[in-house]
């Protein structure tokens, strides 16, 4: 059973629908005990970092997520879920969960023809092997919609990059935690495959 953390962020139900389609059992929950004891946890989200952190703290879900991670359950963060696992976000100058050391800067691009938010399909380059990305071919595209991106302090935490004037991390991880800036639940067949891989992942990198 996968617990999908409910903190009022967008896209919870699209993750749930993708898992249903794959016949993977899941539950959207804000019950801290369920999350702590979950076999696997998905931490999705579209929204604002500050609001997200406030809701997580108010519901005691920040501690539950940390506890689940420490207990070794495979955890998948998606979009905002790949940002608030870092130490800080520039969005609302927010102190975040700190599961991976680093920050979330906003895109600052010099080319005025490049739009922010970065919306659409972008190709992703794997820089370090990972079980969740094992089916990705060079040049495969995934769907993004965001203005901030995760920037871990230590490059060992970076598994994939994309280019949008700058090269920026799009998949990061630490032990049994993996997180993607792109939306696997909205990235067609290759995205669904990543979710399927997560459902079979034992929490080790390869």
């Amino acid at each position: 059973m996968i617990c999908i953390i409910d903190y009022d962020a967008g896209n919870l139900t699209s993750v749930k629908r993708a898992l249903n389609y794959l016949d993977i059992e899941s539950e959207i929950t804000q019950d801290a005990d369920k999350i702590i004891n979950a076999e696997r946890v998905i931490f999705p989200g579209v929204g604002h970092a500050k609001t997200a952190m406030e809701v997580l703290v108010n519901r005691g879900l920040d501690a539950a997520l940390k506890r689940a991670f420490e207990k070794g359950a495979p955890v998948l963060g998606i979009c905002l879920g790949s940002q608030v696992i870092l130490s800080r976000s520039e969005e609302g100058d927010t102190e975040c969960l700190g599961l991976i050391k680093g920050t979330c800067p906003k895109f600052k691009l010099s080319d005025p023809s490049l739009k922010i938010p970065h919306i659409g399909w972008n190709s992703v380059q794997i820089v370090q092997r990972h079980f969740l990305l094992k089916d990705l071919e060079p040049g495969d595209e995934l769907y993004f919609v965001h203005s901030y991106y995760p920037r871990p302090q230590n490059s060992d935490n970076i598994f994939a990059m994309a280019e949008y004037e700058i090269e920026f991390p799009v998949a990061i991880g630490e032990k049994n935690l993996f997180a993607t800036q792109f939306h696997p639940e909205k990235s067609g067949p290759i995205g669904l495959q990543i979710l399927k891989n997560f459902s079979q992942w034992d929490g080790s990198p390869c």
Partner: protein
Amino acid sequence: MLRKRLISCLDVRDGKLAKSIKFVDTKDIGDPVTTAKKYYEEGLDELVFYDITASSDKRDIMIDVVSRVAQQVFIPFSVGGGLRTVEDCSKVLLAGAEKVNVNTAAVKNPQLITDASKAFGAQCVVLSMDIRKVPVTNEIPSGYEIVIDGGRTPMGIDAIEWVKKGEDLGAGEVVVNSIDADGTREGYEINLTRTIADAVSVPVIASGGGGKPEHLYDVLTEGKADAALVASILHYGEYTIKEVKEYLSGRGIKIRMCY
């Protein structure tokens, strides 16, 4: 590198797929859910559902369509048509849409853009504009006028002024529907699309007039659009998604090749 997007718009009337020419002469041409799934499997990048009957009593049919699409289509899709309040938007988002398209209601009540943007994020709010070419006047200095109510009511508002305002109010993307080009299959309104793209810094989706792959090439290059929206050429089976994408890719457009 970010890809250009191929988007298809499915106009839905009473739960069925419909297609109009210049916003009138609407015909039923199939089932939106089956069509959506087929396009997803063929490698479409994004879908738009437009509820063209859009009265509140028909809304439930639309919610049902959205929900059935969301269960089997795993690319982004947006819903528009008759969304007047944040609650209306919330319903289609809960049913499985990623984004909402606001048009007439946003012109009548610009606060809707701000409220929806605050509630769901700017990335969620697409400002859709129906635009007609008119003589240049003091009121319409660009010669492009905003028209609402499905092409029926000219507003005396300049399209360029409106799109800038829409961006300031919190729209995360804009759709440029050229009423003059709609359904003609003679090409997008390049000048209009480029003028809008130069005026705002959010992504621009070109709509209306795409009749062959060359038209998409033109609007994605010369027209500076980030995405091109097509309807007729796919709905009537004149081109497949693969044919359109291979054409664009062959001419150097970076586009997602997935089938």
